[in-house]
C-alpha cells in the first residue's frame, strides 16, 4: 500500500530524514518509535504532503503510484489520513460542519454528489458513539478549548468518518490519560481491517499495548536503524534508545 524509497527531506538547509525505506502492506499495523528529534513527525508530515518540508531525494508510492507531486488534499482523497500530534484550533468552524465539508470535498473529487444530510447525521451518530463522543461536542468550534484528550479523540473521530486506507497516528497517545487512551485505541482497532493499514508514530511503548503492531521500526537521526516484531517495542521500553546509537 505504502512504499517509501530512500526518502531524504528537511527544512531549508537542514536535512532531517536521511534515507528512509519503508514498506506497509494492507492489513498491517506498523509502529515507528524513536527519541525526540529523530524525525518521526517530519516523516508523517512528508507522507501527508506538508509543503513546509522539502523533499530532496527519494519517492513515496501509495498504491503503486508516486504521490510526491500530489497536494495534501489529493493525498487525502486517495485515502491517506494523518492524525495530528497538535491538532489546530479553528474558531468559528464546528466539528460537524468541518467533517461535512471534508467528506463532501472528498466525494466531489471522486465525481460523487454531496452525502445526503440524513445519511451524514446517521454516520456521525454511529462514529461518535464508537469514540464515546458527546453530542454537544460536535457543535463546538473545531478543537477550540478542547482538552488534549478531546483533541485526540476528535482526530480519531475524523478518521472514523473519512475511512482512510492508510492512517498515520502521530503521537496520538501524548496528552491522553489511560481511559482516553483505551477509548482511542479501541476506536482504531475497530476501524482496522484487512484492506487498510495503520502507521503508529510514538515515543513510548504504552500505546502499543492497546494498538498491537505487526512491525516496529526504530528511527534515529533520520534513518530507520532497526526493524523487528512487536517485541522490539518492549526491548526499547526496557533499554531506552541509547544502545541503538
Amino acid at each position, binding site marked *: 500500500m505504502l512504499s517509501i524509497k530512500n526518502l531524504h527531506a528537511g527544512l531549508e538547509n537542514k536535512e532531517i530524514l536521511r534515507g528512509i525505506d519503508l514498506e506497509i502492506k494492507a492489513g498491517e499495523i506498523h509502529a515507528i518509535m524513536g527519541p525526540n528529534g529523530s524525525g518521526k513527525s517530519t516523516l508523517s508530515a512528508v507522507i501527508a504532503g506538508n509543503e513546509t518540508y522539502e523533499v530532496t531525494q527519494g519517492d513515496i508510492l501509495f498504491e503503486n503510484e508516486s504521490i510526491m507531486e500530489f497536494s495534501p488534499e489529493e493525498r487525502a482523497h486517495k485515502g491517506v489520513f494523518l492524525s495530528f500530534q497538535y491538532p489546530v484550533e479553528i474558531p*468559528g468552524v464546528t466539528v460537524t460542519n468541518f467533517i461535512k465539508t471534508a467528506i463532501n470535498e472528498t466525494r466531489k473529487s471522486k465525481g460523487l454528489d454531496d452525502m445526503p444530510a440524513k445519511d451524514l447525521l446517521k454516520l456521525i451518530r454511529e462514529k461518535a458513539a464508537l469514540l464515546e463522543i458527546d453530542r454537544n461536542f460536535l457543535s463546538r468550534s473545531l478543537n477550540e478549548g478542547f482538552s488534549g484528550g478531546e483533541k485526540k479523540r476528535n482526530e480519531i473521530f475524523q478518521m472514523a468518518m473519512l475511512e482512510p486506507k492508510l492512517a498515520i497516528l502521530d503521537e496520538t497517545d501524548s496528552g491522553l490519560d489511560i481511559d482516553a487512551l483505551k477509548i482511542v485505541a479501541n476506536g482504531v482497532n475497530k476501524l482496522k481491517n484487512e484492506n487498510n493499514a495503520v502507521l503508529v508514530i510514538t515515543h513510548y511503548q504504552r500505546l502499543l499495548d492497546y494498538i498491537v503492531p505487526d512491525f516496529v521500526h526504530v528511527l534515529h537521526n533520520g534513518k530507520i536503524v532497526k526493524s523487528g516484531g512487536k517485541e522490539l517495542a518492549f526491548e526499547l521500553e526496557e533499554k531506552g534508545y541509547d544502545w541503538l546509537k
Partner: protein
Amino acid sequence: MDLKEKLISSFLAFENSTATDTNIHQIRTESFKLFEQNGFPSKKEEDWKYTSLRDVLKPDYRIFSSVESDVNLNDVKKYFIHEIDTYKLIFVNGVYNSLLSTTTHEGVDICVMSSALVKPKYKMIVDYYFNKIINKNQHFANLNTSFATEGAFINIPKNVVVSKPIEIIYFNTGTDVELMLQPRNLVVVGENSHVQIMERHQSLKENTVLTNAVTEIFAHKRAIVDFYKIQNDLETASLIDNTFVSQQKESIVSVNTFSFGGKFIRNNLEFYQEDERITSNLNGFSIIGKEQVVANYTLVHHKQPNCESHELYKGIYDEQSTGVFNGKIIVDRDAQKTNAFQQNNSMLIDDNASINSKPQLEIFADDVKCSHGCTIGQLDHKAIFYLRSRGIPEKEAKALMLYAFGNDVLEKIKIPELKKRITKIIAMKLKVDLSMEL
C-alpha cells in the same frame, strides 16, 4: 469648475426652487454655510489622514439626477431579501419609486422624507428631530443636509413591535454619467418599540456614482433598534455614509456594517448616549481586494452612568486594498460605571494590502471598565495544512478560515435570511462554492 464650486452654484438654484419660509430652509442654509466655509476635508485633517478623497471628488458629478427612474422588478428583485415579507422604501437615482415600495401609515409611519418635510402632520416630528444630532464637524453631513430632500422617514410611536423588517434600497441605474446622490434618512423609535432596518446602496450598471448618505436614529426609552448596512456595490461606486444615533434610557441600538463591494467606502458612525443603562452595539465586517478602500470611523460618547458599548470590527484585506479603523470612545466625567469594549481584528492576505487601526479613548470618569484590542494577522499555514490534509482543497480551506474569522460578527445578525444572504455574498467574494453555514 471643481466640485465645491459646482455645489455652490447648484445650491443657489436648488434653494430658489423650494419654499424659503420653512425651518428646513433655515437648516439647509446654515448647513451649507458650514460646508462653504470648511469645504471638503483634506488629508491634513487627522480624521481624513488615511482616506484620500482626491479620486472620489475628481469626477464631474451631476448633482441632481436628470433621468426619470424606471427599473423593472425582475432586474432588482435579487437585491431584496425576498424570502421574507418586508416593508420597502425603494429609491431609483434619488427618486422615490412607489411601484417597488411597500409603505405604511397604519400605527407606524414608514414612508418618505420628501412628503414628511412638507406635510403639516409631520411638521412637529421634523422640527423636533431633523438634523438635531448631526455632528457639525462632519463636512459631508453638512453637505447632505444642504440638499436633503429625499430618503426614508420612519416614525414608530411607543409600544410597537414593527411586524416585519424594513428594507431601504437606493438604486443607481447608471444611466446618468457621474451622478452624486445624497439620500437622507430619519428614524424615530418610540418608548418600548422595536424595529429592524436594512439599508443598501446599489448600482445597476457600471457608471461612476458618489453617494453621500446621512441617517439619524433616535431611540427612546427601552427602544430596540437593529440596523444593518449592506455595502456590496459595484466597483464604480463610492459611498460616504454618515450615521448618527441618539439614545435614551435603557435603549439598545445595534448598527452592523458589512462592506464587500465598492470603490471607496467611508463610514462615519456616531453614538450619543443621553441617559442611563443604555447599550450601544457597533459591529463591522469587511472583505475587500483590488484597490478598494473601506474606512470605519466610529464614535461612542458615554455621557451618563451605567451604560455599555460593545464594538467589534473585523476585516480581511487582499491585493492592494486598504482598511481603516478609527474607534473613538469618550467617557464623560459623570459617566461612572461605564463598560466600553472595543475590538478590531484584521487579516492581511496579500503583502500589498494595508490596514490602519487606531483606538482613541478619552476617559474622564474614574470608575469605568474600558478595553480595546487590535490584532493584525495572516492566514495560519498550519491550519490550512490541517484542513487540506482532510481533503479540503487549498482555496476552499482558505475561504473556510476567512469565513470562520468573521463568523462572530455574522452571528450578530438577527434576521436569518439576511445572514444567509450575507454568507452567500461572502462565498462569492471568496470565489468558492461552499456551503459556509458553520
